[in-house]
């Protein structure tokens, strides 16, 4: 009955064996014990073992954490002084980005020029990480299937006891004034990404928070009537495809995308910096829809 280690390993590889569980032999012995009426005694032994292993676990945790932090602090002693211009992180890459960045990308904000022009594929990957996260949350939290069984809409997953902000007068009145300003500020941060601190990610997060506030205060139904699942899907997919296609031109021009046919314009103008502004808008839309979908899925299990 006792399996060899290799057999267990192959079983684990096939997915039929879990190393974290107790072994099958052990479980058999335990069940035999239970059938012979030694259940109570065994439970007592198990309980003592559990308490002992819990104490041991805590002691080892404390030791491990202290040693871990100690080693990390020790490594600080070998770091160069903070904020010195001679640090190894300040190398020729940084000098190139700062010195030639504005001329080559047209963006006044060097960080925006870096993440959306020199390293635009990195940002495309980030957008797809967010998209994948939305897909995973959709799979895990979606509860529209149950409602299709008998045609009646199922009650929301919201448990009783959650505050209904839509019934609060103060919140309603304040957010009626606040929401337009948050939208305008979000659009400003989004559209000025190449000129000032900000960009797609921060601006999209602000826009998404405005949408969430709207859904909270005016009710999810009203928000879902405007921002339906279909609209969000379409908009996100169009943005991601636009980003992917727009940045693919560097492949077709031999990866020499800095000399592109798209003019960089006058640095400092709102309509400048070539593709950075449209790419910022695409990223902002993706982030905004992601935040809103997260909220809706966690709040009621579906966007509609």
């Amino acid at each position, binding site marked *: 009955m006792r399996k060899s280690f290799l057999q267990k390993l192959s079983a684990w590889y096939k997915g039929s064996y879990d190393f974290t569980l107790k072994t099958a032999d052990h479980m058999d012995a335990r069940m035999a014990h239970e059938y012979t009426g030694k259940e109570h005694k065994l439970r007592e032994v198990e309980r003592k073992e559990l308490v002992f292993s819990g104490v041991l676990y805590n002691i080892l945790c404390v030791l491990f*954490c202290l040693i871990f*932090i100690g080693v*990390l602090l020790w490594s600080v002693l070998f770091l160069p002084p903070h904020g010195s*211009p001679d640090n190894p*992180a300040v190398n020729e890459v*940084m000098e190139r980005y700062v010195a030639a960045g504005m001329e080559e990308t047209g963006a006044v904000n060097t960080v925006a020029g870096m993440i959306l022009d020199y390293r635009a594929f990195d940002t495309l990957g*980030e957008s797809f990480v967010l998209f994948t996260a939305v897909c995973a949350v959709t799979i895990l939290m979606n509860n529209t299937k149950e409602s299709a069984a008998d045609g009646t809409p199922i009650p929301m997953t919201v448990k009783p006891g959650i505050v209904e902000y839509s019934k609060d007068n103060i919140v309603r009145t304040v957010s009626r004034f606040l929401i337009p300003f948050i939208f305008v500020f979000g659009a400003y941060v989004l559209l000025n990404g190449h000129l000032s601190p900000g960009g797609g990610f921060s601006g999209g997060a602000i826009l998404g928070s405005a949408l969430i506030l709207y859904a909270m205060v005016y009710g999810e139904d009203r928000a879902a009537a405007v921002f339906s699942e279909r609209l969000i899907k379409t908009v996100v997919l169009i943005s991601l495809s636009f980003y992917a296609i727009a940045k693919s031109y560097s492949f077709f021009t031999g990866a020499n995308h800095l000399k592109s046919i798209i003019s960089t314009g006058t640095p400092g103008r709102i309509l400048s910096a070539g593709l950075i502004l449209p790419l910022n808008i695409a990223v902002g839309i993706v982030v905004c829809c992601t935040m809103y979908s997260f909220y809706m899925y966690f709040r009621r299990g579906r966007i509609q």
Partner: protein
Amino acid sequence: MFTSFEDLWVHLADNYIVVVSIILFGVGFTTLLFSRNLLKKVVGLNIMDTGVYLLLVSMGFIDGRHAPIIANGVTDTAHYINPIPSGLVLTGIVVSVSVTAIMLSLIVRLYEKYHSLNLDVIYELRNKEEHV
């Protein structure tokens, strides 16, 4: 390397941002190990993330220089801080948001099934379910 304890403390005090980020990382890690509550584990992981961001951004900082936004046409390298760590932190934040969302939705599913957030209870219930 250090001739006296005084030197050592001066070095640690100069690198105080790195020390703080390591302490944040340690706090998050300890939370992750100690608490059996799944939500607190997520909080611990996010505190760890914060420590990493702080370390990364502090690596790009240079004393007395300005944010890397070209102002008044000055493209002198000695005038701006390092923009690369800022871009890297952006990636980190996005990944951490996505991971947090997925973890939270998994926790919601676990809670719906086992009505508990305690990892030990969930393990026990799962073992019983599989072997009885």
